[in-house]
């Protein structure tokens, strides 16, 4: 049984209440940090743990914290990015629904480490129940003296607020989130300056994902060295994976980084294999924006090594034959799924969510969606694939924020790996409306189950 740090007590009844959470060892990290450690010690500890941002980019959290500018007389802010809206990712919502105090505790410790006196949890607007759960948890924590003035008699004050967003995917981008939090239109800012220098209300700000902040608690509880022992190389600790698609047991799993992808998909501890005895066709390993990989490349790297659930192993081979761990939205496709339809669907999402600020993303996402719509419905041309690749290249890297990249990668990778399926949609227009291209040569290299 793999070690669980975040979801250890997930099945304990009433774990969402402060009393039960404390009974299970909750708020020890707050006591330890505030009573025995200086803020610098906490930052150092997080650095030593090797924790990497769980929101998608995988930037080392400790390093991000140490970049925070600390000018005299200017407040600093910690903002928790709970605007989880990537298709395929639902781990933060799960964590906030069931163990809200894990996030609150993490926020207190992290705010203490950064010297923030006011912190915000920016929650996606659709997650009203989670907002209420968090607000109740904050009330409880305040009543118990973990929040507010003079926490645990240390002289450290912290006010924690929950801010509902408007439900825009773009507000998950950190600078758009800050704009939205300030009450403006959620358009990403042009960087530099980065939030660590001029963020919320032009003050130094750190924006972290829910899971990154919650992971600070076990790091303090078990110690950075112990935490760094979990995982492989630079991917340390545990990670929540939201598994969905054609698998027997969809859900949120906490894995130790370094689990082989094959084990994750087929073992009964995790996904439990492909549903209905079908065969694996493709996997989107880290949420809709990362490149899709066919079965042969997701189970083994191009070099023939086993692919592991780590930042490095999934990225092995670059974008030619690799993908990214991203936010851990693990979507599995079986042989009956249509990659063209899926790509169209993803692109439709990015078209809808593009903020419209910069031209390549605003116009390009809509263009790609229209071309993919045509392909999916059997009216495409054979030149459309080259057109899509070219448009995606024109968007990628030329936009203000990473949404452009996120829109371009799934399209480029789907065509890179599944080009014959796209071509089949053109050459077999009518057949593609009822039938399916199936597995073809990217068949899963494992023996069929039946």
């Amino acid at each position, binding site marked *: 049984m793999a070690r669980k740090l975040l979801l250890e007590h997930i099945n304990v009844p009433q774990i969402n209440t402060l009393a039960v959470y404390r009974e299970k060892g909750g708020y020890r990290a707050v006591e330890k940090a505030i009573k025995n450690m200086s803020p610098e010690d906490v930052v150092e500890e997080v650095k030593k743990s090797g924790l990497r941002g769980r929101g998608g980019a995988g930037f080392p959290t400790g390093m991000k914290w140490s970049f925070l500018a600390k000018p005299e007389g200017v407040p600093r802010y910690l903002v928790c990015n709970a605007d989880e809206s990537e298709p395929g990712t639902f781990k933060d919502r799960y964590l906030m629904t069931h163990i809200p105090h894990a996030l609150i505790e993490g926020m207190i410790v992290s705010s203490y480490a950064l010297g923030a006196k006011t912190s915000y949890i920016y929650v996606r607007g659709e997650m009203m129940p989670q907002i209420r759960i968090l607000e109740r948890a904050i009330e409880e924590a305040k009543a118990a003296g973990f929040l507010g003035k003079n926490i645990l008699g240390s002289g450290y004050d912290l006010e924690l607020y929950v801010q509902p967003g408007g439900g*825009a995917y*773009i507000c998950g981008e950190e600078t758009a989130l800050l704009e939205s939090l300030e009450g403006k*239109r959620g358009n990403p800012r*042009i960087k530099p300056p980065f939030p660590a220098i001029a963020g919320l209300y032009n003050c130094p700000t750190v924006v972290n994902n829910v899971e990154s902040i919650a992971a600070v608690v076990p790091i303090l509880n078990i110690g950075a060295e112990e935490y760094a022992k979990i995982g492989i190389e630079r991917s340390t600790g545990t990670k929540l994976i939201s598994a969905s698609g054609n698998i027997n047991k969809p859900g949120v799993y906490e894995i130790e980084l370094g689990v082989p992808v094959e084990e994750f998909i087929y073992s009964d501890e995790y996904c439990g294999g492909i549903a209905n005895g079908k065969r694996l066709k493709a996997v989107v390993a880290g949420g809709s924006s990362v490149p899709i990989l066919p079965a042969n490349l997701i189970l083994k790297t191009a070099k023939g090594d086993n692919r592991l659930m780590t930042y490095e192993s999934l990225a092995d081979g670059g974008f030619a034959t690799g993908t990214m761990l991203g936010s851990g939205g693990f979507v599995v496709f079986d042989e009956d799924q249509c990659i063209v339809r899926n790509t169209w669907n993803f692109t439709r999402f990015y*078209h*809808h*969510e*593009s*903020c*419209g*600020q*910069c*031209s*390549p993303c*605003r*116009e*390009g*996402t*809509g*263009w790609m969606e*229209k071309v993919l719509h045509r392909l999916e419905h059997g009216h495409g041309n054979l030149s459309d694939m080259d*057109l899509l690749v070219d*448009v995606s*290249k*024109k*968007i990628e*890297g*030329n*936009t*203000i924020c990473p949404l452009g990249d996120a829109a371009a990668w799934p399209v480029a990778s789907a065509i890179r790996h599944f080009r014959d399926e796209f071509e089949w949609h053109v050459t077999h227009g009518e057949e593609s409306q009822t039938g399916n291209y199936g597995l073809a040569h990217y068949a899963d290299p494992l023996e069929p189950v039946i």
Partner: protein
Amino acid sequence: MADNEKIKVSIDGIPVEVDPGTTILNAARKIGGDIVPPAMCYYSKLEGSGGKCRTCLVKVSKGSEKDPRPMPKLVASCRTTVMDGMEVQNITSNEVIEARKGVVEMLLINHPLDCPICDQAGECHLQDLGFEHGAVSTRYEFERRTFDKIDIGDKIQLHMTRCILCYRCVFTADQLTNQRVHGILGRGDAAEISTYIEKAIDNDFSGNVIDVCPVGALTDRTFRFKNRVWFTKPVEAHRDCPTCSGKVTLWYKGEEVLRVTARKDQYGEVEEFICNTCRFEKKHTADWAIEGPRAVAHTSVISSNHYENLKPLQVIKENPTLKEANKYQFERSVRL
């Protein structure tokens, strides 16, 4: 600022010394000529503008003297400040030219291309941009987005169909006028400039949104369909205006003043914003003290017949310094 505080950068191999905090675009403008990146959304008179249209993307092939690593992506030159020893490639980088071509194509896919009936034709930045950097034809085969025309007050008309969402008018309305009545509604390619429920901008300087608009989305209702701009003669004039500087360009057809605009420099930016009284109500020669013909860039269609031209630009692609400094790239692009 003392000379020793100037920082040295080179753009396409041409060195220039600028003050710290200058953007790459403004450093390039200091050199002038072909190496100036085109800008559709940046407007030097409007704080916070720029970074959106992506036409001014350039390649930073050397970050600075201290950190010579190149920047990983192309950067928007209008919002990236120069560092000492920075080396920038604009027209000498194929990557930049390709990316810019892509941006022009993107800007044009939802643009109606109705130049023959557009009042902006002849002084339209998008026309110039498409001519200089675009492809011959489009690969876009779908319906373009359309909007109904909206009257903003009785003097300005907004035709969103032509808009490229540069946000210049939003910044103008924000910074020149007191009330925030002008902004963006919607998202993505459905976004539209709006005065929120078509509330008229009631401000003395609202007419300037017409001048800052790079395309024909915001037009002067007192001039609409009166004439093509290249048939009119631009003449500099001024008057003693209590609200603005009173320095304008009058556009004559025969004896008649067809329209009044602010004076625009070679980058199409106004020199000084003018008030609505000057723009819309003073349309008689008697109202103005005439200074003389307005110099127009020699490349402009407006200058095609006569009139005084600006001097030809100094740095052109045949410039020996540029050629020498970029020998390798030029040879490479010829080989390619």
